[in-house]
């Protein structure tokens, strides 16, 4: 029983890593209708930027704030000068552009900081606490709480604010939104900027655990995509729930179904997606969406 609870708690901690990235993907999808493969790479770049400021002697929190602000600008500029050209064309091309962006950003991180694992300081201590007989580090706990806070903020942003409404309107139909006076270009920039900001937070949250490398979030990206699809592209709550469920189920399946084991546990989220989508094509929490993958 102790092992079981520990596995669940471990799974939740791992799931929160996937959730952090998934939230950023949801945000950019809600704001632009695209799936951004570069989200992970941009988050890593943000974490590196924070790292640089920490190395310069700034306090960690300040370094993170600077990185978050710079990430907003970077995201907005990427939209304006790169994605803008492809937003109204073939969506496949736009997705491939984000793949190119991922490659470029990863490459830039590698050129500037190399491929060695860099230790990134954490805002939260590594001391552990006991919950229901399971041990969990304060760091994992705080990460999970932060994710939940971000999720709530996002949900409120989308559903309760004028900006959120405008972002969704632009993603839905930019041309038509412009007829109501929405500054489409600026809103798209804001959407990308916010997503990059969120990515930056995700990056600095998970960097202490994964250690900084240019490919730090490559695997997490796959899980995050799975969580986003599972939870519904339009729902921050859905994708956090899905990410946690993936983390937990993966652990339980690997341990308690030896036939699958640790090597094939990655099939679990996809099997789950398959089953869920047969029952609910729009995802767990999503509303029916026409996806522009």
């Amino acid at each position, binding site marked *: 029983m102790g092992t079981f609870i520990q596995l669940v708690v471990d799974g939740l901690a791992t799931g929160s890593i996937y959730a952090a990235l998934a939230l950023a993907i949801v945000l950019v999808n809600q704001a632009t209708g695209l799936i951004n493969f570069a989200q992970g790479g941009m988050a890593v770049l943000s974490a590196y930027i924070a790292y640089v400021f920490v190395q310069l002697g700034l306090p960690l929190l300040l370094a993170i704030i600077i990185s978050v602000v710079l990430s907003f600008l970077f995201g907005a500029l990427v939209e304006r000068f790169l994605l803008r050209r492809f937003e109204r064309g073939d969506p496949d091309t736009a997705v491939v552009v984000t793949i190119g962006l991922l490659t470029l950003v990863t490459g830039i991180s590698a050129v500037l900081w190399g491929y060695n694992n860099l230790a990134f300081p954490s805002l939260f201590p590594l001391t552990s606490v006991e919950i229901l007989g399971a041990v969990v580090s304060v760091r994992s706990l705080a990460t999970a709480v932060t994710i939940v806070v971000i999720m709530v903020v996002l949900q409120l942003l989308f559903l309760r604010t004028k900006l959120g409404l*405008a972002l969704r*309107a632009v993603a839905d139909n930019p041309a038509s939104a412009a007829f109501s006076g929405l500054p489409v270009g600026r809103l798209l920039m804001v959407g990308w900027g916010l997503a990059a900001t969120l990515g930056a937070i995700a990056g600095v949250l998970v960097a202490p655990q994964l250690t900084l490398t240019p490919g730090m979030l490559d695997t997490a990206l796959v899980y995050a995509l799975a969580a986003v699809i599972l939870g519904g592209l339009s729902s921050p709550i859905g994708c956090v729930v899905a990410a946690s469920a993936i983390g937990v189920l993966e652990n339980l399946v690997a341990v308690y179904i030896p036939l699958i084991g640790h090597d094939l546990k990655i099939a679990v989220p996809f099997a789950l997606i398959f089953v869920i989508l047969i029952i609910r094509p729009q995802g767990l929490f999503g509303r029916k*969406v026409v996806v522009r993958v």
Partner: protein
Amino acid sequence: MTLLELTVVTASYGPLQVLDGVSLSVPEGGSVGILGANGAGKTTTLRAISGTVRTGGRIRFDGRDIRGLRPDQVAALGIAHVPEGRGTLGQLSVRENLLVGAYLRKDRKAVAGDIDYCLDLFPQLQDRVGSRAAALSGGEQQMLAVGRAFMAKPKLLLLDEASLGLAPSTAKAVYEAIRRLRLESGIAMLVVEQNANLAFSLVDTATVLETGRNVLTGSSAELKGMDEIRRAYLGG
């Protein structure tokens, strides 16, 4: 007093020139129709005004030259465009669509009142306020599109083929509501419509386009009577 004036406006999609010198004017509070066969440039004329196509010539609105402005800038000056195909925001709820329409307005309280007005104008929307626009029928979507445009409290409404694809009775209901809207709000209108009877129920004057040029302008009453116009452009 002239609200909108187009003087020899040209427009092209890439190398393809669609407008070849269109001139027309809409007086304040007036309602003007644009008639013509398919491909004559009716929709493009509206798009030229709202800034979604590259144009030449002169477009003045409310004493300002608006040619070359972006669509959102045009909208901010008080022109609301109900595009062909309705342009409702499918993933947003009916209420959210209306709120998007009021995006530029700062008077929150009045916005709430205007939403109620819209629902009064289009009673079918009343019990669908929470559902997504994509789930509405074609007629309901058209009503929502008009409602959204109204929510901006524009000086001029550009209405493109509001009857397209609707059952005749639905189309009639939509036009009746628009007529009521016009009477009660005094918003000026520039109307593109294939169905001549519907068009003449709403407009005071109209201009006929042929391959991107005006060929004829007159009052509804005059044009209605001209048999050859009817046959050539209005399809009966």
